[in-house]
């Protein structure tokens, strides 16, 4: 089936009355996602588009409407606070789409996530979201490019994920769950976390991992893959041509002045872990299909 989200997911949208929140909530409802509530402080008691009840707080959305997942579309200045509110309300899954959250805010959030009493998994920020095709779409990805199936996809990038998913779908291979973990240097769910979940999911037969330059998340995931993953894994790293010391659009996509976080090092880690490598972005699905027949 899938990981994290499915047809039983009951979504609350934080920032539902904003322009972005409204647009993507409509898209998600059309896809079939169960949106049970929205949160906009001060607008509690109203109905959004005559369809979804609006609450003042996340806790209220949980208590009154049984929300068990949250998606966040609030502006960057308030995003960390929205995440913390969802954590305090014990929502098991929080997906933060917002781009441009200050890194210091995320350092504080990450500490809170590490508390023993935390019941929340955070995905993002600065991510496209998560989708279990045919069941539940949370985020800004175009739903129709996906198809239900058994390949799990993990990525730090939005449109590059769409590329890989589209390649799979066109070759007749559906996806179990696709997770965009986001392009920021500090996020809630790492490549490693996502690989582990897909590896343990009985309904995922193969995995595609799309990384970017910067940090060591891909290397850590590869160390785990080498020891623990028997399922076929294919991978791609974006940013081989990027110069050192410049941030390439995503705040996390930077090769440090000392040369840490290069595409070369990440491809080498993949190779060592037995991951089938796509050397160019138009071959991501083919790299998987070399080792996985479905």
């Amino acid at each position, binding site marked *: 089936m899938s990981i994290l989200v499915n047809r039983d997911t009951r979504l609350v949208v934080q920032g539902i009355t904003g322009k972005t929140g409204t647009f993507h909530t409509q898209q998600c409802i059309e896809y079939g996602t169960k949106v049970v509530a929205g949160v906009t402080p001060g607008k509690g008691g109203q109905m959004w588009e005559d369809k979804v009840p609006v609450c003042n707080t996340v806790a209220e959305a949980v208590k009154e409407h049984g929300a068990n997942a949250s998606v966040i579309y609030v502006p960057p200045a308030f995003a960390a606070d929205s995440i913390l509110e969802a954590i305090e309300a014990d929502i098991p899954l929080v997906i933060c789409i917002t781009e441009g959250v200050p890194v210091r*805010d995320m350092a504080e959030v990450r500490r809170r996530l590490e508390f023993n009493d935390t019941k929340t998994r955070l995905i993002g920020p600065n991510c496209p979201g998560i989708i279990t095709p045919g069941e539940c779409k949370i985020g800004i990805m175009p739903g129709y490019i996906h198809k239900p199936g058994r390949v799990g996809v993990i990525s730090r990038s939005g449109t590059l994920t769409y590329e890989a998913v589209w390649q799979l779908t066109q070759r007749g291979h559906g996806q179990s769950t696709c997770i965009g973990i986001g392009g920021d240097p500090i996020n809630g769910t790492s490549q490693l976390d996502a690989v582990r979940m897909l590896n343990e999911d009985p309904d995922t037969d193969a995995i595609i991992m799309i990384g970017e330059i910067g940090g060591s998340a891909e290397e850590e995931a590869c160390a785990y893959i080498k020891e623990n993953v028997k399922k076929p894994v294919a991978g791609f790293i974006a940013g081989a041509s990027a110069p050192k010391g410049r941030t390439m659009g995503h705040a996390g996509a930077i090769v440090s002045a000392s040369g840490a976080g290069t595409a070369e090092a990440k491809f080498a880690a993949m190779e060592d872990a037995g991951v089938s490598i796509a050397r160019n972005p138009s071959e991501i699905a083919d790299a998987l299909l070399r080792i996985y027949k479905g």
Partner: protein
Amino acid sequence: MNIHEYQAKHLLQEYGVPVPRGYAATNSREVETALSHLGDEMIVVKAQIHAGGRGKGTFTDGYKGGVKVVKTPEAAREAANHMLDNTLVTAQTGPEGRKVQTLYLTEGCDIEHEYYLAIVLDRETAQSVIIASTEGGMDIEEVADKTPEKLIRVSVCPNMGLRSHQCRQVAFALGFKGDQVKQFAGILTGVYKMFWEKNAMLVEINPLVTDKDGNLSALDAKVSFDGNAIFQHPDIGQLRDLNEEDPKEIEASKHNLAYIALDGNIACMVNGAGLAMATMDIIQSFGGSPANFLDVGGGANEDQVTAAFKIILSDPNVKGILVNIFGGIMKCDVIANGIVAAAKNVDMTVPLVVRLEGTNVEAGKKILRESGVALTPADSLAQAAEIIVEQVQSHS
């Protein structure tokens, strides 16, 4: 966002970190004012650019050194005249160098020993990390490489903040004694407070020095801030120096485009940062060289695409353009119309290859084919890269 050394030192001073007395100057009149404050003692004249390696740099007219230690006001005046409005090339500026438009004149210091002190936000642990070493004044990457045992690293929990025992830990590890321990603790506390309050990504003091009397001060400083947090700190935003940025990048930011100039000749325009990087990669893998990184964002409209074309074409090195759009929520036919309108709006002087994929892709391709605009549509990203590389190479 980076700032100049003199700005960093003024900020540090506000947080109680001792720095040598100094004055910024952008013209000869301000140089005179600075000299009148500094007196007849040793004076240091420092070129202010956002790049390291200034001391070992060379100006394009052959004058050596972007940092000069001199003994008289006359010598300082002469050094200042050489540096102002001259272009300094260092290991970090690239061969084109950086024009020096500001100088910093400071009092000299009798250095007893040079230390290194920095705080960075470590992405892996999501904590601030204090990095210190007795081997100051040199490249810290080199210290980390050759003598890693001389690097002191102490993590600071974001929720607990810096604690006194951590200050003492670093002070003793650096070998400070007596009053110096107290002085250092004060400096580290100030540096951390500034780092945290101002959303810095890096505060680096290299070197932190002791003088003959055992007193500590920050001789050079480098600070960079989280661009996402500048809106919370208008005072920091004002420190931005547009002279240090590529005019094309400044123009792009006005249109909400993420653009970074590179030194190749094939421009690209892409939606999404990851896909934009991957597009640069594929150009390179076909033997071409990307002229830029450009992310037009998820909802690229006609105005943005037009602005993007204009920015791309203002780069004289550009000999071809590859547009790569994955139409998701934004449909391909809408994007195709935007590209066609924008292409008609600008004077397209180089080959243009457009690759569309995603929602309504057939309708989008039809619009491109029937537009009358001189462009080559491509079916896949690999094909698009191959075509543009081939077209650019056959034209040059």
